[in-house]
């Protein structure tokens, strides 16, 4: 009896392994294509010409991504720095983490911000999704030079950014996270474009 059960287990594992091997290449390709699509939407087409998926930098910063390791993507044209995309996390959303991608040009200007994952209340806190409202484009073109640090708040807190109708916590969390990212870029700037792993913290 145990033998029969064991036999079924072996056959099952064999079948799954076969499917895994058949689909593996396609799955890796899908994930890569999805990443490229996500990243390339953050910067104007043709503004870079490098292999963005592989030109990355590992970094750990207590203020960003809830202190976890970051993979920073670098965009270059003719090997000259153009911009970085920094994945970060707003840990204080209404319903936990909001995962963001922040694209900043080498001059320190925000090129785009996108929310990639969140658990905010549908219909109230999800207006940071581009399909629902263009709120998140308020960050486009902003920089610390243009907007002093104290202005990186929602209007209710005396800052520049609109809150959503009926939801302040979500935009407040996002503005804070983007501000931290911009400050981070201001602090390290050029270091983030170094070809080799710099001795970050």
């Amino acid at each position: 009896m145990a033998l029969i059960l064991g036999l079924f287990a072996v056959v099952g594992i064999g079948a799954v392994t076969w499917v895994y091997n058949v689909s593996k290449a396609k799955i890796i390709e899908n994930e890569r294509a999805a990443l490229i699509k996500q990243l390339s939407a953050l910067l104007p087409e043709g503004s870079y010409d490098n292999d963005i998926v592989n030109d990355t930098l590992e970094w750990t910063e207590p203020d960003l991504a809830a202190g976890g390791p970051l993979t920073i993507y670098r965009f270059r044209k003719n090997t000259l720095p153009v911009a970085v995309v920094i994945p970060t996390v707003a840990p204080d959303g209404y319903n936990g983490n909001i995962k963001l991608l922040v694209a900043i040009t080498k001059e320190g200007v925000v090129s785009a911000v996108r929310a990639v994952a969140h658990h905010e209340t549908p219909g109230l806190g999800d207006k940071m999704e581009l399909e629902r409202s263009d709120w998140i484009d308020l960050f486009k073109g902003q920089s610390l030079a243009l907007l002093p640090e104290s202005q990186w708040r929602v209007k209710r807190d005396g800052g520049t950014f609109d809150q959503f109708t009926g939801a302040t916590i979500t935009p407040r969390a996002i503005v804070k996270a983007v501000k931290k990212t911009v400050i981070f870029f201001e602090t390290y700037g050029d270091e983030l474009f170094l070809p080799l792993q710099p001795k970050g913290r």
Partner: protein
Amino acid sequence: MQYSQLIKEGLWTNNQAFVALLGLCPLLAVSNTLINSLGLGLATTMTLVCSNVTVSVIRKAIPNEIRLPVFVLVIASIVTAIELMMNAYFFELYKVLGIFVPLIVTNCAIIGRAESFAFRNPPHKAFLDGLFMGLGFTLALVLLGSVREILGAGTLFSGAALMFGKSAESWTVFLFEDYSGLLLAVLPPGAFIGLGLLIALKNSLDIQRKAYRKEFKEQSVDKMN
């Protein structure tokens, strides 16, 4: 059992979601839009057909005492394979359905059909049973998904591109202009309330039909007298 009986049971009289109330966890969680519902429904149907046929083919080689662990093995292998295939060929939809694809394993309807039907019937019947039980489940999902999407967002077919490719991007139907959405319908309680209402509707249809038949019978008896 007649084939028409199999079809009727799967789609209506023994509908796994509306009558047997099985597989409610994925049903309630995913049914916030029509396309999500359709995606999970078809993945579940696929699993049901594969597992029913497999169990039926090997039913004579399975000792009665270990049939349940064998069913679990068969179903888990099939779901894993389907999950990998979806990841490879319906990547966007797979990302939307996320955790609920592997959770098809825990859909009691699947092991239920293996135990109560496929284990006792030849493959061609098990195939039909799996297909129509799956389609019945899909029907329930799609109905609930449509109701929730219409009430919650005022649209239908949003996200069709996830399943049918780029050309489907324009399929989304906006039913009301400037509709702000009924939040309750999208949130989990909306799923419970919606399912409750749909079951009530099904039951009332059944009762009406029964009453109509009874009346019809009585009339014909009267005529004979």
